[in-house]
């Protein structure tokens, strides 16, 4: 049995943005759940505040798996020490677009731009690199963005 090759589990990286827009944490947990149910291992990368919001929301780690610092994740991917099959970047400001473009350039993952917030259309216009854009006007209520994600169903791709 030990010599049998094991199938490599698909992986997904969730790149969190600034957590100032409330929907990010709930959508991240929702997406993690859907990915895990589909057999995809999710890894979260964010700044300290964004990561801590998730860790505190899921103290027994029912949903969360590996959580890493965002700068460290960029370094690991750039240095070819890690990569993922899918990458979801949470975008509600200019920095989010910059991180998505960076992931598109350094990673081989299929890239998804999750765009939300009050001025989501303004951010969508800045995206001129290959990726699947999933966008909705969602600030406090996550349902519009959840609906947009469900329509794409990236866990089934």
């Amino acid at each position, binding site marked *: 049995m030990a010599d049998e090759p094991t199938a490599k589990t698909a992986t997904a990286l969730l790149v969190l943005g600034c957590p*100032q827009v409330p929907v990010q944490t709930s959508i991240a947990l929702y997406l993690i759940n859907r990915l895990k149910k589909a057999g995809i291992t999710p890894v979260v990368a964010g700044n300290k505040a*964004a990561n801590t919001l998730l860790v505190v929301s899921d103290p027994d780690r029912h949903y969360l798996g590996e959580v890493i610092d965002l700068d460290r994740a960029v*370094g690991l991917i*750039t240095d070819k020490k890690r990569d993922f099959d899918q990458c979801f970047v949470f975008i509600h*400001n*200019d920095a989010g*677009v910059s991180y998505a*473009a960076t992931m598109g350039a*350094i990673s081989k993952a299929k890239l998804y731009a999750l765009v939300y917030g009050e001025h989501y259309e303004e951010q969508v216009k800045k995206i*001129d690199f290959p990726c699947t854009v999933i966008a909705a006007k969602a600030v406090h209520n996550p349902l519009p963005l959840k609906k947009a994600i469900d329509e794409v169903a990236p866990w089934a791709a």
Partner: protein
Amino acid sequence: MGCVESMNYEIVLRDATFKESRDYIHSNFRESIDVQPGFKIFDVHVIGLPPIAIGLDGDFVIFPYTKPCHGTFLLRVEDGEEAARLRALKK
């Protein structure tokens, strides 16, 4: 910011968009180099839409540093060795 925090840096632009940062370098520095996202300057992997412009002014390196909550900062750091390394990449 890790390593950046320990640098003696000057903030040239703060809370800028990535485009404002790139335009500022092209408009204000005669010497610049374009790099790809993830390129390492000092100990920082630069973030942004390719190509990312890095300014050079004597021994000073001017580069964008992006934080998720504060947008892009344009930082000016004096380091002759790093400036020389970047100039060598242009050749």
